[in-house]
Structures are given as C-alpha cells and as structure tokens.
C-alpha cells in the first residue's frame, strides 16, 4: 500500500528550524569572529614581540661590535668615515687629528719597541699601567692652581712637561705669579704628557677618555698661550656655551661646572659633569646626515662636547638637540617590510657623561595602522672603544684573537687599529 506520509516540512517546522538556524549561525559567526580577532591580536602582539626581540639583538650586537660606527667589512673605508684624519688648528697650532677608528700608525702614535722609560713615545698596547710605575703618576698639585693665569696645577712644569727641554722663562707668567725664571729645564717626566697629547690627537676626545685610566687628570704643560709655561686652553679653560657653533658647544676638553675663570685641570668626572663627549659617526642614519660632512668637520665634531645637563641650551645645536642630531644613530631594520608591519628602528649612541661611558640603546617601533609608537631603552655593558679597535683589522675585516693552553695570553697575528 502506498504510504501517504509527507516528506516535506510543515510551516511551523520551517519557522522553528530557520529561527534555530539563525541563532546557531549567529552564535557561530560571533564565536568565529571573536576567535579570529583574538588570534589576530595575538599574532600582532607576537609580531611586535618578534620585532622587539629583533631590535634587542640588533642593539646588543651593535653594542658589542660597533658596526654602526665602523663597518670592518665595508673596506676600503668610505671617503667620510671614522678612520679618517684631518689637520685642525687650535690656539694657532695646527695638528693632525684622528677619530675613534683612525689607525694609530696613521697618526704616527705607536711604540714599536717600548723600553718602559720616560723616553717612550706612542701607544704601547701591551702596557697595563701599573700603579707602581712613576711614569703613570700625575706630577702636579692642583690645589696650587692660580686663577686667571695658565699655571693651572701648580708650578711643576720644571718636573713634568710635554717637551724635554722647555724654556721656563716666560716674563709675563713669572711676573704674574711672582715666580723664579728657571730658564731651559730638563723635566724628568715627559712620558705622560706626550701620551695625553698623542692620544687626544689620534682618537679625539672620547677616545682619550676611553683609553686612559679612570684617575687621569687631563692636562699638562706645553704649547700654551704663554709657551712652555702654560697649558693649552684646549685642556682646561672652557668656553661659554656657544649656541651658534654648529658642531658642539666647545672645542675643548673641559666641563663647564667650575666656571670659566676657575677652570683647572680636571679628571674625567669634572670634565663630563655638565657636558657630553660623544662619538659622532659618519652615518646616514643620524639626523644631521653626518656621512655627508667634510672630513675636517667630522674630525672637529669628534673633538667637541655638547651641553646636555642644562636647560639653557637644550634646544640649540650646542645642547641636547645638537647632541642627538650628531650622535644618535637611528638605524631602520627591515626597510622592505610589508606595509602593515610596524616600522622598527634601533638607536645606539656612545658618549661620556657624568664620568660614565654610556652605550644608550633604544628600540622604537611604530604601527602604520594606529600610529602608536613604543620604545624600549636600556644601557648595556659591552665592548669598549679600545676593545672595538682591537677587534678590527687595519685593512678590513675582523682580527682573530686566540690563545693556547700553554700560553693563555690572547694574541692576534693580525694588524689591529692599535698595532704599530
């Protein structure tokens, strides 16, 4: 018998089914949307975290290897780089000046056969400056300094001097300070002044601070305004902050904290108390495009300081803005990234301030969708300038250092930037 049972739906069934279906589909769609959004957010956060990690590794790698300041694989060095040198004139005296990665032998500041005596000249990388060595002692008495004359650390020029036979008969200075004219003298200690002078000229101000021991007093007698009986103002007589000068506040090694008439020979602490001494790289990633500067200008900026601890010059080329524009290398990572990825930059600056050698690392990422910018800043203990110079081969590439079980001293057969 043929069945009369219907095979379709009733209207009620249809309505209930449609209503239930809508509810189910809506719920599913909402759940799916929430799940998708959650995953999108998680992926975006994961992407940002990945960028942060990439930025961290780029920053600490830079901290250890200094490639933003000197790329040993980009040889020969570009026309403008920190391996260059140029003559600079100060106080009427023109001297050849190098920068942070200028080879020592290019500046004639090496010591191929050290004797360990006062007669040595040039840099001896094996010497470890023992405190018991009188050569490394500071021979002077700063409390004896005299205001407004250039006898800045007592009248000890007869004992320690840049020159081996200085003429200590300056009439003006003798009359001013009621001193006796010594005539032509033979100072016992000439090694330390020549080390200071040579390093200042060879590497610039940051290099001078980096290479010398922490207790160094930066100053010595020789070629000053009163000839052999005074020291150059470059060492101990700060200028007023010059906001018109494009390359830093002063072409001097002195800080401002003591006032201009009270300036004397200072240690690293006082010199860097109010100003910062950066390494100015030849980089296309600085705000001032320091890679386009003439070499002499770049050399000048590496023999300068910026007022970074006071407000009066903050917005000027002599203050923080000038400092950052010169010294902060803002390197973009992944320039060819997808358009919707955040822009990532890594910034590393090297400078001496408040007696510290700062390696300031800053990672910045900016969302192209929201414009939101975030950054992480930190400093890190890492390779110092001297270490970075020892890492590099003079003619490009990395120097290999190794040792052996029988001879633990680390040596390199490659010529580094400090080699004779």
């Amino acid at each position: 018998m043929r069945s009369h049972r219907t095979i379709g739906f009733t209207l009620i069934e249809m309505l209930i089914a449609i209503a239930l279906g809508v509810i189910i589909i809506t719920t599913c769609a909402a759940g799916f949307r929430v799940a998708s959004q959650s995953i999108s957010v998680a992926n975006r956060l994961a992407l940002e975290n990945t960028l942060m990690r990439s930025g961290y590794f780029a920053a600490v790698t830079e901290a250890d290897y200094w490639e933003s300041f000197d790329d040993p694989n980009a040889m020969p060095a570009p026309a403008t780089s920190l391996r260059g040198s140029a003559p600079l004139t100060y106080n009427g005296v023109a001297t050849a000046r190098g920068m942070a990665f200028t080879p020592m032998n290019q500046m004639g500041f090496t010591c191929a056969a050290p004797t360990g005596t006062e007669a040595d000249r040039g840099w001896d990388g094996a010497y470890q400056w023992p405190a018991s060595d009188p050569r490394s002692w500071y021979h002077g008495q700063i409390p004896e300094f005299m205001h407004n004359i250039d006898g800045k650390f007592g009248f000890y020029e007869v004992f320690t001097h840049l020159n081996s036979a200085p003429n200590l008969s300056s009439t003006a200075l003798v009359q001013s300070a009621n001193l006796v004219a010594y005539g032509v003298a033979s100072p016992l200690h000439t090694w330390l002044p020549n080390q200071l002078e040579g390093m200042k000229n060879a590497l610039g101000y940051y290099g001078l601070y980096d290479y010398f021991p922490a207790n160094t007093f930066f100053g010595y007698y020789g070629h000053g305004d009163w000839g052999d009986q005074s020291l150059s103002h470059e060492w101990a007589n700060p200028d007023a902050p010059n906001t018109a000068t494009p390359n830093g506040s002063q072409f001097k090694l002195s800080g401002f904290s003591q006032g201009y008439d009270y300036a004397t020979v200072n240690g690293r602490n006082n010199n860097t108390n109010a100003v910062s001494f950066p390494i100015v790289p030849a980089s296309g990633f600085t705000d001032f495009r320091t890679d386009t500067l003439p070499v002499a200008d770049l050399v000048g900026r590496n023999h300068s300081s910026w007022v970074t601890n006071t407000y009066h010059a903050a917005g000027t080329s002599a203050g923080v803005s000038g400092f950052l524009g010169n010294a902060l290398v803002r390197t973009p990572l992944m320039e060819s990234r997808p358009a919707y990825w955040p822009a990532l930059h890594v910034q590393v600056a090297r400078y001496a301030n408040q007696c510290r050698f700062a390696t300031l690392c800053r990672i910045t990422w900016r969302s192209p969708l929201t414009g939101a910018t975030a950054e992480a800043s930190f400093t890190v203990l890492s390779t110092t300038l001297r270490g970075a110079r020892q890492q590099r081969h003079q003619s490009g590439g990395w120097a290999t250092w190794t040792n052996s079980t029988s001879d633990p001293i680390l040596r390199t057969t490659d010529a580094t930037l400090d080699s004779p």
Partner: protein
Amino acid sequence: MPIVSRSVGGQRRGTVLILVAGICALLASLSLAFMITMRAAAEESRALVCDAQARIMLYAACNYIQEASRLGYDNGPDHGEAHGWIDVRDGSEGPKINLGDPPRFARGVPRRFPMYVWQQTRYAIRPTTAYNPISTDEADDSRFGRPYLANPDPQPVATEFSSASSTGQVRDHLHGDALITPGRDPVGTPRWNSVNLSWFRILRVDQARFLVTCGAGQTQGFRSFQEASTDLGADAASQLFGDADMFTQFRDQEVRAWYQVEWSPAVIGGINNTTDGGIIGAEHFIMLPENASHQYYPGGVASQSNSRNMVGTIRWIQRLTTEPAAW
C-alpha cells in the same frame, strides 16, 4: 519501506555532522596556528632571556675581578687584604697579602662561577615596610599619633638578633645559609629555581687581563663532560649531566660569549675633589665614586656611601668574535 524518510533523516544528520565537523576543524586549525605561533614566540623569547642572562654574567664577572683584586683572602687572623692584580706596592703579580707571596689567582687556571640565589643571603633583613608605624590607638594616650622610633630599622631575618643569648642567630645572620668550610669560600644553599641558569668563567691570561666566558644554560661553566668528571668526580658529573652526549646537548642549547677584560688599579676621583670646589669646600679629601647613591650637593655631608671605590676599575672590554682555544 520507509526508505525515503530514512534517507531524508540521514541527510539532515549528515549535514549537521558536516557543519559541526567543519566548525570544529576550523577552530582546531585556528587554535593550532595560535599555539604554534605562541610556541615559536616562547622559543624566541627563551633565546632573548638567555642572551640577557649571559650579559648579566659579564657584569658579575667584572664585579668579581674588581673585588678579587683586594678582597676574599682574609682567612687568617690578620684580616689582610690583597693589593691588586698588579700589586700597587711594587708592580709584581697579585693578588697577595704580603710581598713575596705567590699570587692567589694563578694565570692559565680557569675558575668557574655557576650563579644562583641563596635561600638566605648574608645579612638578610626582613621585608618589613614600617618598623615603627605611628599608633592609631586612641586609647593608648602615651603612643597615639606619635612617631616613636622604638624599633631598629631594618632588622635581620634571624630572630632575637640583639639578644645576648642568640649567638647562633647572630652567626646565622652574618653567614646566611652558607656552608662554612675552613679555608674555603662559603657556599650558600641555592634556591632550586635559580640553578642551572647562568654562569661565568674566568681565565687569567696576563697580569691584569682576563678572558671572561659568559654563559646561560645548564653546563655550569664546564667545557666538556670530561672536565666535569675530572673536577667533580664521575658520579657527580653523571648525576648532573647524564653522559657526554647529554652534556653536548646542554652545551649546544646554551648561550656563550667570550670577552677580554682588563682591570686597572686606578679608581675614579669624584666631583670637586682636589679641584676648585673641593678646595673651597670642606670636603677636599672626599672622593665621590662613580656609582654613588648619594649626590654631592653644597653643604651636604659625604656619607659612607660616598666613599671611594677601592677595588679598581675595568679599563676596557673586548668581545671576541670567535671562541678562543683555551678559556
């Protein structure tokens, strides 16, 4: 036969099954992708954490080099101190208490420093915020609202520290949980979750130059399983690292970095010392160290924390581009 009706019912159930299975598959794939992403992120984060821990070891190693130039050799009644890696008295090789003694840290002999946190460090103090809260008890007329400094601040973790009968607790306070062995440095009991994370290792390569290896991982600074077996004994090495193959796995997973470091006996003079400000002011001989927690200010008192750094400075650091032969 109800073939047709069964067929229609089967289609309905099959459709629902397909829908449910599809949605489940979709959610499962999304979840899987999410978990894979998170897993990858966690792996990458681990690499970052290890790198950061290894870099922290460079700080620790430099601190050790500085302090070991003078401190840590006081095993006798004379409370002697050493005089630097290059003895400041005569330029001979130190550190040593008396001139003519052999150096207390030989060249070419590596030392390991696996790092961990003690259960109770030396001189541990209680994490109490306020030892002398102002009384809010109005009934106590003698104390209400008065800022009495009745209790010492801070106070040690060891109880009854000030009691004359608490000699043991005083000792506990001074030594933490160190296992005191005559003639050896005290070793504290590590917190279980702080071990096998990071280490440093020092090889003195010259008078004042050191090869510092910084590591983050489980090898505790051993170069090889063989070295661990020689140093610790075969049983202890097996307990720690299993066998040579497993040690190799540990070694391959950890971060290692090599630095050459030079120590200098020079310590920094501070602001206004032996210069103009120091001459004018009353603190001519006060040396403010580089990392003083107190800042100099006119009229301020130079406290103990403004004392001079007495353990030398790190003159330069060089990251090595390749692993050296001996470390």
